[in-house]
């Protein structure tokens, strides 16, 4: 992805002024690498937390064995997309697992 496209993606996400789009993109890759092995991303994406609270969550996950490589970028990504200034997401329903 070019720098310009990353910048556009950052704007689309309502990124805070000053957020580094390249870091946010790296953070998203870090999320896929370090979080997905243990749980689905919905657990993250449904929450809205301050940067300090996300940082504490990363401490907790590191303590539980997650090897986070690009931690600063991950934190940037979490704050930009799932900060406590963002509106909570609408509930998502699972598909019917009875009428199969």
């Amino acid at each position: 992805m070019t720098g310009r496209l990353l910048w556009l993606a950052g704007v689309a996400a309502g990124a805070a002024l000053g957020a580094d789009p390249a870091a946010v993109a790296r953070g998203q890759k870090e999320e896929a690498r370090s979080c997905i092995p243990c749980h689905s991303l919905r657990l993250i994406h449904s929450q809205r937390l301050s940067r300090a609270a996300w940082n504490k969550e990363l401490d907790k996950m590191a303590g539980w064995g997650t090897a986070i490589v690009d931690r600063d970028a991950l934190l940037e990504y979490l704050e930009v997309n799932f900060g406590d200034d963002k509106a909570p997401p609408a509930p998502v329903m699972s598909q019917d697992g009875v009428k199969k």
Partner: protein
Amino acid sequence: MTAGAAKLARAADDSIAIPGKRPMILHNDRPEDLETPVRYFDSWLTPVDAFFVRQHIPRPAPIDPAAYRLTVNGMVSKPLQLTLADLQKLPQATVPATIECTGNGRGFYTPKVPGIQWGRGAIGNAEWAGPRIADILKAAGASSSPAFLETDGADTGVAKTPDFVRSLPMKKAMHPATILALKMNGQAIPDIHGFPARLIVPGWDGTSSVKWVVRISAAAEANKGFFMNPGYRYPKYAIPPGSPAKPAELEVIEGMPVKSSITAPEDQGKLALGSIAIRGFAWAGEEAIERVEVSTDGGSRWRDAQLSAPKLPFAWRLWLLDWRPADPGYYTILSRATDSKGRVQPIVAPWNPSGYLWNAIDRVGVTVEKA
């Protein structure tokens, strides 16, 4: 959300059906954290296919009932390895009990706290059946001296995630309603709810009711693992919203507060002028529900709702108020429960860093339109 993240989220949503479950509010699919939409709460017993699910760590591999063994050890004179048939031979107790996730309603707290952002539906009422813990411990020759019962489920943590182990004061473990449930609403407990055996600790938070139980141990001290400390603790003294708790002043949660929730009409719904049923459920942990009051004018005037029988500790009561608004417009509907001990549902639920025990007076807004 960045475009890539949105794409990932969509891909997950489109493909997730949880076998044996109706469409549920999907907080997490791996492991499963599923909330019951309030519209399913129309019966005293919550159907298994609509019952909420809270998994801390992935489920264990399905347990072969023929190979299943329950280890009973610790401070007992006769350690046991019990088969499912052994457990079925003991006297079976049937206990209707509400189970509510400790964090039900977390999403309503401000400031936001980490964890599953449950709304109203991390709760359900079922009829559980199985041997009493007291009878199992008696068979193992437990003395009266151990202060705690430690329970381990077959689920194990990923990476260095802690194992899910809980301790219960022996007095509660020996209560005749505390059972190792083998059945839920008359059928074998489904795997997602803890097959073949789960602890049921009536009136306490859901996390006490350990699933896939493979070991119970009589012990002098409470387990010191994450899920006992700092997990599932609540500030002894209320703290200002947004501030950290003092670890030394965090206590294990015992029992549950009094609470009612509105299940109909749904929040922000539009209704035709006429007869409108306002419905919900109320429960109070180890106490029984005495009264539920409803206001349709933001809390100026309150009317008593009709309560379902029976009036029991541990199990919720459904309530109903037939409302006939005279005029169209926007209405704020509130519900407030009182229990047999005189506890009244508060206007404000005490904020706490883990977002536990939300029990503020429930509130929905509806627009009534001319028919």
